[in-house]
């Protein structure tokens, strides 16, 4: 007797479609800031992800249509694509996506079974294996003299003979890289952020991208696709940790707002750490998960070997999920007396 006989209309497909929709403002700003190259990156990742997903489903004997239709592979592809440098070569995109779908997702049991966030696994594998290619960022159009058209982007992505002069003209270090490098060269934060790559809160342009991701995230929250705990705790974790360091030595540690308004943090807080499959499930667990990821992000950015810590922070917290869940089980109805909620 399969009661209930009615269902909410929200299916996995609907959830994933909303996640994709909520990424659109971010993608729009991305195109406006860095040129249309990202669209190519997204397409390559999507095609690769869908093909890999279909292949793996077939190999594992699962029905392809309902699983492919859930759009979860596309979400993974987009999240990875948005984390990659805007001018990453095509094979880097394909390799990362394949790794995310085939290994991180399907070899761990497929939808719902993966312990680690697939997009972040793909990202981590790439940055460890190909650190050089992982820094080919197009500079914000505002700062680079020659805006990069779709053709030139394609040429760079597909590795055609691009004149070195062109590449040098359009690529720049990201604000995080700049800060990191500057600090390593014994400059103070104040000196570093006087460079044009830095804007009001984050990097020039980058802060707009962060704002767009924030907007999409708020949409997801308003639609109850994501809960408030993870993103808020993540941002608070980043802000508190960065703020703590900044408070003690403003010369060596960036301002908390600068860290919070990095696109990777916003994307991580609202779109990646909120991945239900690999995240904590209890309400208190979500807070712990978010705070932990935020804290680790700053720790890795500050003392780790990579400019950005979001991916590793989330992967590390993924590891802790079973423990977090176990120790944060909420009380059930009527279990212990408590003050009534008004």
């Amino acid at each position: 007797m399969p009661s209930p006989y009615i269902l909410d209309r929200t299916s996995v497909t609907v959830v994933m479609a909303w996640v994709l929709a909520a990424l659109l403002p971010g993608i729009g700003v991305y195109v406006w800031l860095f040129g249309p190259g990202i669209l190519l990156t997204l397409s390559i990742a999507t095609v690769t992800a869908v093909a890999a997903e279909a292949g793996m489903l077939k190999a594992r004997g699962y029905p392809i249509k309902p699983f492919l239709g859930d759009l979860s592979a596309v979400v993974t592809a987009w999240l990875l694509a948005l984390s990659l440098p805007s001018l990453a070569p095509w094979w880097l995109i394909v390799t990362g996506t394949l790794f995310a779908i085939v290994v991180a997702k399907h070899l761990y049991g497929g939808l719902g079974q993966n312990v680690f966030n697939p997009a972040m696994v793909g990202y981590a594998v790439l940055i460890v294996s190909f650190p050089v290619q992982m820094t080919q960022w197009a500079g914000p159009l505002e700062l680079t003299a020659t805006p990069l058209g779709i053709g030139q982007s394609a040429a760079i992505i597909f590795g055609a003979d691009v004149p070195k002069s062109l590449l040098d003209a359009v690529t720049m270090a990201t604000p995080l890289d700049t800060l990191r490098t500057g600090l390593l060269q014994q400059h103070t934060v104040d000196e570093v952020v006087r460079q044009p790559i830095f804007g009001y809160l984050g990097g020039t342009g980058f802060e707009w991208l962060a704002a767009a991701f924030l907007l999409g995230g708020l949409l997801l929250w308003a639609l109850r696709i994501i809960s408030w705990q993870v993103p808020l705790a993540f941002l608070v974790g980043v802000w508190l940790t960065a703020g703590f360091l900044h408070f003690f030595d403003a010369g060596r540690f960036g301002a908390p707002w600068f860290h919070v308004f990095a696109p990777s943090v916003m994307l991580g807080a609202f779109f990646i750490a909120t991945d239900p499959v690999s995240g904590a499930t209890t309400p208190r667990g979500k807070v712990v998960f978010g705070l932990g990821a935020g804290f680790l992000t700053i720790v890795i950015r500050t003392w780790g070997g990579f400019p950005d810590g979001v991916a590793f922070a989330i992967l590390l917290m993924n590891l802790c999920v079973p423990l977090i869940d176990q120790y944060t089980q909420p009380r059930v109805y009527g279990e212990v007396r408590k003050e009534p909620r008004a």
Partner: protein
Amino acid sequence: MSRPLFQFKGGVHPPGHKAESNTRPIHAAPLPKKLVIPLRQHIGNPAKPVVSVGDHVRKGQIIGEADGYISTAVHASSSGIVTAVDLQPVPHVSGLADLCVTIETDGRDEWVAREPLDLGAPPAELRMRLRDLGIVGLGGAVFPSAVKLDPGAAQVCPTLIINGGECEPWITCDDVLMRHFADEILQGVAVMRLLLGSSEILIGIEDNKPEAIAAMQAAAAKLDFAVEIVAVPARYPAGGAKQMIETLTGKQVPSGKLSTDIGIQVFNVGTARALARAACHGEPLISRLVTVTGHVLRPQNFEVLIGTPMHTLITLAGERDGNTGVLMGGPMMGVPMPNLDVPVVKATNCVLVKSKELFPPLPKALPCIRCTRCADACPAELQPQELFRFAKAGDFGRAQEYHLFDCIECGCCSYVCPSHIPLVDFYRYAKSEIWAREKDKRASDLARERHEFRQFRIEREKKEKAEKLAAKAQAKRAELAAGADTATPAAADADANAKKALIAAALARAQAKKDEVAPKNIDNLSPDTRHEIEEIEARRAKIRELARQPLESEEKNS
């Protein structure tokens, strides 16, 4: 209505579909030719049939007696001839047939004599009368009301809540009941108040029933005691007893306890009306309001005699093509009916006819993505995704640890699950598995105990027998030995020291006896008598000799 309300956690907002059936007037369903009245229409022991085939019964006559305290009587809903007392399909979750009384109605609808209850009688007597009038909770749980109207050791239940929540989609029988019978409901409330000694009376009604709220308020204004009508936010399952309690009082019923433990008792509005009919008119519970809705031409509420086949109601409401099945109850917790001959029972609040358009087949389930929408929706504040994981893996112990048995099977989790996992089915499966195992375990424990006891008894009997035999044998041997004045070889055979001691004692006793008896019996006797005695002794000795053979063989065997 300044009462502060409290919010229970979880819940969902499925489309209500109330307007389809709540605007038409109540119709009395016509008297059917045949009534099939199940004897199990309440929680507790089923009623014991007291009529047999061929009996003529009148409307309201008892056809099944209450069997014990947690039980109620069952009555004929109309006059006619009993044509069968046998197993019939009934609208029960199990889908199994149950004992029913079938009555061929005679169309005269003749009542038995009825008498209003004497409300001045001792409460215990009143409760027995209510039990014999078949009053049970009409909110769905069909718990015998007499039991719930017993405040128990506390003597008084301070808070009485009347539940007019009716949060399941499609169902409107309580709504129209409140609109049309507000006065009667409150008469029933007065009886409850009397029996429970309640000082605070709250009537919770979902705020999507403004007409019902208005009618109840108007009726309450006429009372000489205070009744508070409270509009509660419409949300499924706001009409669940525990949720209603929390909304109105902010209190949660402790897990595994009854609401009376925190001084609260809850009754459905339909129960209140049935109670009023019983108290004021001596009428047993033989009919109820039933919503017939869904895929029919004229969805509406009917006053239906218990035992009326469901298909007559569907015909009455206008059958349509494309019927894909019928539920008893609403779409969240309703139960599919095996066929439409099943009768309306006291628990039947709604006959919901399905169609492809209204109830499209449920999509295939996808894996759980741990989104915890289910946990957000669960009014029992459980972690449904964990319960599902454990139930699916067959880890019933862990499922129990995660409070499986606090699940009220409301279906909120299944309703919101984006992967369309039939979560509640897994919980029912896990619960039934656990019950079956407990039952098996109990049965096997019992069997083992019984077996062990039997073994023990056999052993004990054997030992006792052997001891007795041994003692007897020894005594006899000793006696024999003493009689024959020679040590018997059997005595020499004895291996155990204990045996020897026994023999010695027996010998001594025998000697003493002989010494004591001999002069009396032998010395002063005539030679004839003595000879007689000797002969007898010789015969005895022979018999003893004979008797020793099987004894020895038995001794060897053991």
